[in-house]
């Protein structure tokens, strides 16, 4: 339970609730333990002597005990609800902010669905466990132990039967739980499959229909759903073993108490009423232990969730900010790579011994085939990934990117990523991502530069609604909106990563011309596969499998670089 408790410590403001809640619960438990004694007294001193007044007095005592117990429980329930819901809220918020700090490699490593299920499902488990911790974790063992103690005060010898029965009941509970645990994992795996296939069928709805694969998709889904069903039944039956098993043990205890109790009554060591009380106590023990088993179950699951949550929380970003950041120098090259060799993880290098620079106000085009390492360059400039020590340097405005704050670095750069994605909201709210606090005029001018104002204006202007991921826009519209978003703050450096792939040539051309004239002071990096997109740049870097095949102007490269010439020829581009 180590991880679970460590997580609960994150919600320190509820500390008092976690302590006070169980206290109130124990008060109720004490009263509950007194009840069988009162009833036993009622039988021995009331019924067996015919004292009706005593019986009535006992009745009043019982009612009072119950009412006081109830009020005290209610306090506990409130505290438990507040603390657990609050803890869940704190954890969700913390985990979400933490995910936002993770580096690209870490985000890739976990994967979106995993992270989402940790923020939602896993934290819900922890939240439930937190509530049970307050409500039952103390009460149940207290009741079980208390019942044994109380029975010992009645008849120490017969209480030995309880002392034997309780561990047996407990062991059978643990055994069943252990046996079912791997099955729960199996169910979880199937359920992940159910989620995945559902998601795939939503994102792939067009392709699946185009191939008319709905039937086989249903088959694929049915297979997982059936597997989940079978595992659930299996685990359900194993879990259902618990109740009969424990009841049998308890009843064997009852039989023993009755058998030996007969002897004890005969010898005068025990009264009839006390015999009834003992049977009541063994009942209470069973109930308490079943509750205990349930919460152990909940805790086990929550602990597994806590481990998963903790794993995510313990993953601190590999990209850390320096304590004393260097200053940017606007007269230095806007971007400079010096002998950079870079690979993702332990794979082969994607970039090898690469050097180039671009001055403010200048533009560079980076061209190369699929997988030649173009996007990796953008990743390094943005410091989404780090170059390993000794494998070269990436400098932005004179400073090594490792020696400036990542937020400062990124705010200087307007990146248009390859994947044109927006977030739900309005066009305005999306553009403000690029430049918080920009005026409407500035946003509109960015839209105009990005050749997006026409279709935005035709809808509702800056208030045009944007649906999730921007799917209410076409690919080309989305691309232009992402360009506008990057340009909104007039950044010192603009990186266009294949960001006109969905644009027709005319729009693409207008876009590049507008960027060149509207952001004349910025350094512009255009990553593309199209010669037409890069030929107007001051210099062009041709990439071949991570190595520079040549750097120079269009004409220079056409004459000197065979790879570049080949690319040009494939696109009917003249010298």
């Amino acid at each position, binding site marked *: 339970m180590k991880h679970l408790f460590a997580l609960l410590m994150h919600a320190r403001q509820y500390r008092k609730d976690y302590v006070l809640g169980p206290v109130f619960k124990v008060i109720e438990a004490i009263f509950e333990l007194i009840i069988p004694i009162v009833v036993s007294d*009622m039988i021995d001193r009331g019924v067996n002597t015919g004292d009706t007044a005593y019986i009535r007095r006992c009745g009043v005592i019982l009612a009072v005990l119950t009412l006081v117990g109830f009020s005290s429980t209610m306090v506990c329930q409130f505290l438990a609800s507040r603390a657990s819901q609050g803890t869940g809220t704190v954890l969700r918020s913390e985990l979400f902010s933490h995910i936002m700090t993770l580096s690209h490699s870490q985000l890739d490593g976990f994967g979106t669905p995993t992270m989402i299920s940790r923020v939602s499902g896993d934290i819900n488990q922890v939240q439930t466990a937190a509530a049970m911790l307050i409500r039952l974790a103390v009460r149940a063992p207290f009741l079980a132990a208390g019942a044994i103690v109380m029975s010992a005060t009645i008849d120490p010898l017969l209480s030995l039967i309880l002392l034997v029965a309780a561990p047996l009941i407990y062991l059978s509970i643990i055994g069943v739980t252990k046996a079912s645990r791997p099955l729960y994992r199996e169910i979880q795996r199937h359920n992940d499959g159910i989620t995945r296939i559902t998601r795939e069928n939503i994102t792939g709805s067009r392709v699946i229909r185009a191939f008319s694969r709905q039937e086989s998709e249903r088959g694929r889904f049915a297979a997982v759903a059936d597997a989940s069903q079978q595992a659930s039944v299996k685990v359900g039956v194993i879990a259902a073993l618990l109740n009969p098993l424990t009841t049998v043990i308890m009843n064997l205890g009852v039989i023993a108490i009755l058998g030996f109790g007969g002897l004890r009554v005969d010898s005068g060591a025990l009264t009839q009423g006390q015999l009834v009380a003992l049977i009541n106590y063994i009942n209470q023990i069973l109930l308490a232990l079943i509750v205990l088993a349930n919460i152990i179950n909940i805790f086990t699951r929550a602990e597994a969730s806590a481990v998963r949550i903790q794993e995510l929380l313990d993953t601190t970003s590999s990209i850390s900010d320096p304590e004393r950041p260097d200053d940017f120098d606007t007269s230095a090259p806007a971007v400079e790579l010096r002998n950079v060799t870079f690979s993702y993880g332990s794979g082969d290098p994607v970039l090898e011994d690469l050097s180039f620079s671009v001055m403010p106000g200048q533009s560079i085009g980076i061209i190369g085939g699929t997988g030649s390492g173009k996007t990796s360059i953008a990743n390094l400039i943005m410091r989404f990934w780090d170059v390993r020590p000794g494998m070269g340097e990436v400098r932005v405005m004179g400073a090594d990117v490792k020696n400036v704050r990542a937020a400062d670095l990124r705010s200087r750069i307007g990146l248009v990523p390859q994947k044109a994605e927006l977030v739900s909201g309005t066009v305005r709210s999306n553009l403000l991502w690029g430049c918080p606090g920009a005026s409407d005029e500035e946003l509109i001018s960015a839209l105009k530069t990005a050749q997006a104002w026409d279709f935005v204006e035709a809808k509702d202007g800056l208030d045009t609604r944007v649906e999730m991921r921007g799917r209410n826009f076409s690919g080309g519209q989305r691309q232009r909106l992402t360009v506008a978003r990057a340009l909104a703050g007039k950044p010192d450096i603009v990186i266009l990563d294949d960001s006109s792939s969905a644009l027709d040539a005319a729009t693409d051309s207008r876009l590049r011309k507008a960027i060149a004239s509207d952001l004349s002071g910025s350094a512009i990096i255009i990553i593309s596969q199209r010669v037409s997109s890069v030929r107007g740049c001051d210099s062009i870097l041709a990439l071949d499998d991570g190595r520079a095949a040549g750097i120079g102007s269009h004409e220079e490269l056409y004459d000197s670089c065979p790879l570049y010439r080949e690319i040009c020829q494939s696109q009917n581009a003249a010298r």
Partner: protein
Amino acid sequence: MKSEKKKQKISPAVVRRLLRYVRPYRGWLILSMLCAAGSVLFTLFTPVLTGDIIDLAIGAGNVRFSEFPRLLTELGVCVAASAGLTLLGSYFNNRITYSCAADLRKKAFEHITGAPLSGIDRTPSGELINRVTGDVDLVSDGLLQAFTQLLSGAATIIGTLVFMLRASGAVTISVVVLTPLSMLAAAVIAKGSYKYFTKQTETQAEMLGYLDEYVGGARLVKTFGREEEAGKGFDEINGRLYKCGLRAQIYSALVNPTTRLVNNLVYAAVGVTGALIATGGSITVGQLSMFLTYASHYAKPFNEISGIAAQLTAALASAERVFALIDSPLEYGGDPDTEAPRVPERTGEVILDDVSFSYTKDRRLIENLCLTAKPGQRTAIVGPTGCGKTTIINLLMRFYDVNSGDIYADGRNAYDMPRSALRSRYAMVLQDTWLMRGSVAENIGYGAEGASREDIEQAARRAMAHRFIRQLPQGYDTVIDDDDSLSGGQKQLICIARVMLAAEMSRLHGSSAEPMLILDEATSNIDTRTELLVQKAFADLMRGRTSFVVAHRLSTIRESDMILVMNEGHVVEQGNHEQLLQKNGFYAKLWKTMTEEE
């Protein structure tokens, strides 16, 4: 597919409908009932025997041992029988519940695969996913509780009454009169909590949608340094979840103590009444002990029913959402029953006749579009970005239905055949790539059942994907995902291989079944040198086939038999390259800027 927000009452219709899913398993249900009745009977008989034994032990020197062995043995048998039957019953219950859940899930999934795309495109994916996963889980939890607790609960109540009446009418009445109080309390609480549970589930779905967008788009958030704002947005939803979650929790936390209070009061009342009657001698101390046990037995089902009341209301709220999904129309619901003709006549002619379409009523898009693609013709669709090129493909494939006008494919009205038959006439590659989780080979073989590994590799070679696939860690067996592990270009190549394989397989299996081709910016992310080679493969594929190509590359357009020039949803010009240049209109202008570019 919108969630219904106003409903707060448990509607009997939802319960009835849920029960309809149970109907196929009524055999199991009957067995389960028998087990419940049997186990309850034996369970209830144990206090009688216990009471009898207690009455044998009256006091010091006054214990009748001769009866002990028989009664103790009977007690043992009762205990064993009730345990066995309980176990058997729970097996049946689990079978019923999870079978129902699986049925419900499959039915809901059918609507995910079959709902019109207009619905899918509009509903947040998190919400849809939750219906199939979380909501069905809640329903099955609720069902299981209902079966286990309600069945044995009902049997317990009836059985207890019978046993109690046999011993003493007066004490029984005190039990019967008082116990409904706990039900009443539970009902009041359940009524109050339903609202908050619904609210809670809705807020959770909203949060899932937000997570989907922002965790999925975490890279974007970092690019713009929006971590803090993203956190604030999350906290806002989180804060609302706290509020409604807390209320829901407090309500559900009320249930147990309240019913326990009532039960304890009943217990006290029975104890006192019983004790008073026992002093008169009409019942024994053993019977009093039996009554005390029964009082808790009798109350327990009420107790548990109220305990699961909250769970049941949550389950019904979820069931309602699942049913809302199931009630959404299936796109092929209105499809003609006629199967695709066994030997489809494939002329390869496509006609759009006076077609009008718009996604929303207030914004008109395509109006009175007429177009004829002759067999084997290549039609290029060009125009400024966002002019409605992709919409035509949506209509050809019947992803969306026209508002008016007719579409003919292979000389048959596209609306007079099942959608699947229509779609099988086309092979399609879209700009938005989609891959499923699975090996590269599985992904390429997706549209072509029965393709061998050789067929797959052959298709990959033609799509120029073979080389990079071989470089992947496990080659064709590398498990890929629809995430960012492959580049956009690589994904497109795999999608192209997929279509090439499908086309190849359909060619092999029926010569007349050569599909028409739709390429929507299919090579936009592929570098041009590779693209040139892919285009060659496409050209082979397109030879003799009717094809529609949304493209921005000159070579593709120029060689087309027919060029549709679109602007703002209208086809402004159509003709071949030369004709259009002669017209010296929109296309000529477009062409000029394009050639200047390249």
